[in-house]
């Protein structure tokens, strides 16, 4: 087909037919919509299938698990959940994990807020280098810090406490918090600060009364990320604790009994570690997209 416009009636007709055929070949919007939904559903099935299998296992008795492969629990039982909620060894794992995660979130956000403000509003000697140094801590493999942490916290007498894990997780959580908060703070116009100072606000009062409410969603998203990275990390948490503050993750690795691995209890414990995440993500669902771009879109 030539690009020049057709001149004879016959050519016009041919051109029109060609265009109509092209239209027919292209999927209509409804079909395209269905295709999109289909592809997305396939991906979500891929995401959910392993989780479903875990859920399925957690409701089966151990004999059913090892006996035959069943797609849904035919012998529905809550014994594994009952075991976790009645055995102090198990449920203290959750208490410990939640304790150090909350502590870490509190410490990180408190020190990160002023630091992020400084990075977003001021230039000062060494600011760029300091920021890069912070980011390098985000990149530090926990395995590198394993041994020194163990010795450091042992020496200062913090070994096997919640504080030790909370402080250790500050290594990557504080830089992350500073990074995300800096993005959110930079999107608040500086005129707001100036107006507040002209109105006679002192810095601390301005920060608490005006600035923090303005970046509420940013703080919510930051807390979500702090929760996420502290909750999922296990290597440091299990190395720095033995029995007093053991996280659920390392309790789970010790389910190997005399009769092999207790698959049912392991699955039930796994399911219970997913629940806090779902609760937390529900609260920030409207801001999370912006948060993932670290406030920089």
């Amino acid at each position, binding site marked *: 087909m030539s690009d020049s416009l057709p001149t004879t009636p016959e050519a016009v007709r041919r051109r029109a037919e060609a265009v109509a055929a092209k239209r027919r070949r292209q999927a209509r919007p409804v079909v395209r919509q269905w295709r999109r939904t289909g592809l997305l559903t396939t991906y979500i099935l891929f995401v959910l299938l*392993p989780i479903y299998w875990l859920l399925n296992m957690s409701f089966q008795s151990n004999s059913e698990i090892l006996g035959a492969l069943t797609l849904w629990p035919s012998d529905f039982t809550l014994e594994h959940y009952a075991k976790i909620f009645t055995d102090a060894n198990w449920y203290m794992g959750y208490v410990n994990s939640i304790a150090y995660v909350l502590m870490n979130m509190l410490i990180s956000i408190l020190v990160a807020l002023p630091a992020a403000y400084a990075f977003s*509003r001021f230039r000062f000697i060494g600011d760029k280098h300091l920021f890069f140094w*912070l980011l390098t*801590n985000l990149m530090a*493999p926990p395995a590198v810090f394993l041994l020194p942490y163990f010795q450091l916290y042992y020496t200062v007498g913090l070994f096997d406490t919640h504080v030790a894990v909370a402080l250790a997780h*500050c290594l990557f959580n504080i830089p992350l918090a500073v990074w995300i908060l800096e993005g959110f703070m930079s999107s608040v116009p500086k005129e707001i600060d100036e107006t507040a100072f002209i109105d006679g606000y002192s810095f601390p009062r301005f920060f608490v009364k005006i600035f923090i409410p303005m970046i509420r969603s940013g703080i919510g998203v930051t807390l979500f990320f702090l929760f996420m990275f502290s909750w999922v990390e296990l290597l440091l948490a299990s190395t720095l604790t033995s029995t007093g503050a053991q996280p659920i993750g390392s309790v789970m690795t010790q389910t190997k009994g005399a009769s092999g691995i207790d698959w049912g209890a392991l699955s039930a414990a796994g399911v219970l570690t997913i629940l806090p995440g779902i609760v937390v993500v529900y609260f920030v669902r409207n801001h999370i997209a912006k948060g993932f771009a670290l406030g920089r*879109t």
Partner: protein
Amino acid sequence: MNKVYNNRAWLLILPMLLLVAFSAVIPLMTVVNYSVQDVFDAHTRFFTGTEWFEATLNDPALQAALLRQFAFSFTILAIEVPLGIGIALLMPKRGWRASVVMILVTLPLLIPWNVVGSIWQIFTRGDIGLMGWSLRELGYGYNITRSAVDAWATIVLMDVWHWTPLIALLCYSGLRSIPDAYYQAARIDRASRWAVFRYIQLPKLTNVLVIGVLLRFMHSFMIYAEPFVLTGGGPGSSTTFLSQSLTTMAIGQQDLGPSAAFSLIYFLIILLVCWVFYTAIMNLQKDKQEKGA
């Protein structure tokens, strides 16, 4: 934004600096200290200079682990980045469906890493796992404890399952920040689907993609819990990545000197790659500002 030059900003940074220094600088100095000494016990130690570094760099097992690590990181990046962009394009933009899809897609990111390993261990076992069992029923002798290929493929699949959501959510947030007017203009111009993606969506995604690739590279380079739980590094050492070699060396064998030297080299490699990325981001932003001005 025009920033004011003011050195009192250091006061705002100080508390953070002290805390991070306590959890980063002191331990790192310990590592540096160990890396140049041969420690027998608390009182006997010898200065060894660069001996441990040379030994580590020449260790074939560690070289193999490093190569494996690079192969792994690039494989998962090559799969996760295009897949993540695709998912982000498919995700609904508003309404209750957007929330539901968002929560479902985020789900794998919120599962503790060793539980991810457990989930896939259960899922892929030949006797009790859906995937392992199905593959065997289909006539493929799937076994991650015997076959290195199976183990490798399963770990890649697990990582794709676990981390594609991160790229997808990053891209999704990038896409949402494109004003509707751009799409309207494209419709008026009768731009094709591909042209819209290439000239409107992709340029908007570059920024978030750089963050995504950076985060993914970092995390894949530190991967520990998932393969440890799933395969334990085997069969043989076919899925032993750097983190695991290091942990075995430092905690298992208590080889302070070599493992400290190894730690430093490991850290430096990550730093080097990330520095390249960081410089790239900064230059991108500078270009943008110059264009905007």
